[in-house]
């Protein structure tokens, strides 16, 4: 009782601070800027926050932190908008939305996908803030149990979970490994060795995953649409199709809750970040689904869109738990938030609740307000966004290409990234033709460096002994889950083959066209 009374007191203090006109303005500015950052491919939340960080020097501490936090969680919804409308994920955590959400958009369900995502963001964001408020110190303590070996295994588990994307586990695994290989290209950050550069100097900095994502999703989509002259008619978007019906709401309710819980837990663990959370939540729902045929680029599952957005937003709230309670930033975005705290003379960590409790509770209260603001901003805007899907691809395609080319350049301000985006655009198109999924490649690129550094740390701690990965109960549990994740699809496939021995899968418009077996 005392705990809840204390919480209520603290929260009322937070709301009384956050509901001033000045802080409401900074919060709203943050979420709007976050959405813009999320919409633009090539500019991630950390870049957006970094660019705007100097602007916050002149703001009061609470205003600066509220604005940057707003960018942090506002960006994930912005990423959903481009993912659904043009199939280009604004952030790596929206990659799966670019598959299922975009497929829904192509069926005239862009409004439904965006509404489900907006409400999911609100539900999960609010759920995440409540969990953050109730359990931040305790959860951060659990997060500390995750040392380098546990994190390495968790990341490997995230990669193994994607192995069942697409039609074949081997193809998905190959793509994830290819992504990790691409991430290894360039200067090794520890020893300074040049890896796989073949003496070509632009490769010294390696491949950044954003130009690769832009190529594989954005440019490849433009190329695919140039295949046919008789373009598909513009998608008919009717007002009654903008909102999910009762059946659709029922379908997304459980995924919202499951993905919120999973997203928050993974968000708390420093390292994996919301990208792993979104992939895992998507995979959990895909495996639970009783409509497996709807998942993927041919139809698009509403549960997938709901799960990814809920996991993203709950994960963003979860990431604040170790930051506030221990001063540990678990992602680049929270690292910038940490620097904003420090710039304003506030040191996050165990003493924060004693020294600057008012700032923490104002931030938490502002996140409630920010989530409501995001919902109020986005739901009325859904019809407007969805009408963009009516523009024929003949006009939309070249505009997408323009954003892709400029977006690829802005990542590192180097022209080589434009070449990378174009090259991966062609590769992405060819990958579509030979059924190689792109999402595992991106996940491999994002998680590869993290996996390498955690494996390296683990083996350094253990003086090169591999038993560090099965010495503690937690690592044994994670290892068992990893083995299960890798072998389960094989067992399922064997069962499937036994029940339907020789079924040739034919799909896609083949009428009159050549197949690659010719």
């Amino acid at each position, binding site marked *: 009782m005392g705990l809840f009374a204390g919480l209520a007191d603290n929260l009322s203090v937070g709301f009384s601070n956050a509901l001033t006109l000045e802080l409401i303005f900074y919060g709203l500015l943050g979420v709007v800027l976050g959405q813009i950052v999320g919409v633009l491919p090539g500019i991630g939340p950390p870049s957006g926050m970094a660019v705007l960080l100097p602007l916050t020097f002149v703001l009061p501490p609470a205003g600066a932190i509220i604005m940057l936090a707003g960018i942090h969680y506002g960006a994930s919804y912005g990423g959903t908008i481009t993912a659904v409308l043009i199939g280009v994920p604004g952030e790596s955590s929206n990659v799966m939305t670019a598959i299922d959400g975009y497929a829904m958009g192509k069926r005239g369900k862009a409004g439904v996908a965006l509404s489900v995502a907006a409400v999911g963001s609100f539900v999960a964001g609010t759920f995440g803030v409540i969990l953050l408020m109730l359990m931040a110190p305790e959860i951060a303590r659990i997060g500390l149990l995750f040392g380098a070996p546990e994190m390495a295994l968790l990341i490997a588990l995230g990669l193994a979970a994607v192995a069942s994307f697409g039609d074949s586990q081997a193809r998905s695994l190959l793509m994830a490994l290819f992504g990790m290989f691409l991430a290894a290209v360039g200067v090794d950050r520890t020893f300074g060795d040049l890896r796989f550069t073949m003496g070509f100097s632009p490769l010294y900095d390696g491949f950044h995953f954003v130009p690769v994502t832009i190529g594989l999703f954005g440019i490849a989509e433009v190329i695919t649409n140039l295949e046919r002259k008789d373009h598909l008619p513009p998608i008919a978007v009717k007002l009654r199709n903008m909102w999910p019906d009762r059946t659709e709401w029922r379908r997304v309710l459980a995924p919202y809750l499951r993905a919120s819980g999973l997203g928050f837990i993974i968000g708390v663990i420093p390292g994996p970040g919301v990208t792993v959370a979104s992939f895992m939540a998507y995979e959990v729902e895909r495996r639970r689904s009783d409509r497996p045929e709807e998942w993927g680029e041919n139809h698009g599952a509403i549960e997938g869109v709901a799960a990814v957005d809920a996991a993203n937003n709950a994960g963003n709230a979860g990431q604040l738990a170790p930051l506030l309670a221990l001063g540990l930033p678990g992602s680049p975005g929270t690292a910038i938030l940490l620097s904003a705290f420090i710039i304003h003379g506030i040191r996050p960590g165990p003493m924060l609740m004693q020294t600057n409790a008012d700032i923490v509770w104002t931030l938490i209260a502002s996140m409630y307000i920010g989530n409501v603001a995001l919902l109020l901003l986005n739901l009325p805007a859904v019809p407007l966004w969805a009408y963009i899907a009516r523009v024929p691809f003949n006009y939309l395609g070249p505009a997408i*290409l323009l954003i892709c080319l400029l977006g690829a350049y802005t990542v590192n301000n180097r*022209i080589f990234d434009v070449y990378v985006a174009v090259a991966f655009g062609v590769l992405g198109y060819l990958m579509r033709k030979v059924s190689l999924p792109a999402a595992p490649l991106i996940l491999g690129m994002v998680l590869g460096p993290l996996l390498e550094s955690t494996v390296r740390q683990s083996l350094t701690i253990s003086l090169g002994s591999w038993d560090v990965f099965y010495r503690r109960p937690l690592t044994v549990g994670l290892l068992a889950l990893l083995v299960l994740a890798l072998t389960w699809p094989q067992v399922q496939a064997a069962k499937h083959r036994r029940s339907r021995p020789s079924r040739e899968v034919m799909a*896609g418009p083949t009428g009159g066209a050549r197949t690659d077996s010719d």
Partner: protein
Amino acid sequence: MTRAAGGGVAKALSPLRRVVDGWRVSDLVIAVATLAIAGAGFRESTTQHELLGRFGPGAGLFPAIVTGAALFVILLFVLQGASRAVRSSWPERDGIRRIVLMVAATALVPTLSGIVGLLTASLLVVAFLLFIVVRAPVLPALLTLTISGGLAYLIFFRLLTNPMPRGPWGYF
């Protein structure tokens, strides 16, 4: 005797043949490309970089694991083969022409950006796509060009003030 030996070999290879029989050209390309990339990567990781150094894992360990795993997954790929993959159609000659034109024009953007600036180079490619490749009607094409160019200028140059290549004449 020879025929009997040949029959024995054929019988021994029959499970592999059954697998490979279901393959398409693309599967073979994927397998060969993976073997080549992963093989070369594994070789460089193990011969040019340290696997385990004095202070812990060397620069070659992780890529060696990744490329080694890729070589192992190829076995899985051989076993799963083409039977699990969805067939997709290739475009007709006209479609290929449009794709080649678009890719060639887009690949020129980095070179052109050094002369006329990145935004102008990208807009030239967009114009080429609209007028030549998809042969869009003039008015909507001009509208698309103006709106997308204007928005791109506002966002990338005015709002984000990105230092983009402008070329010797200071174009955008």
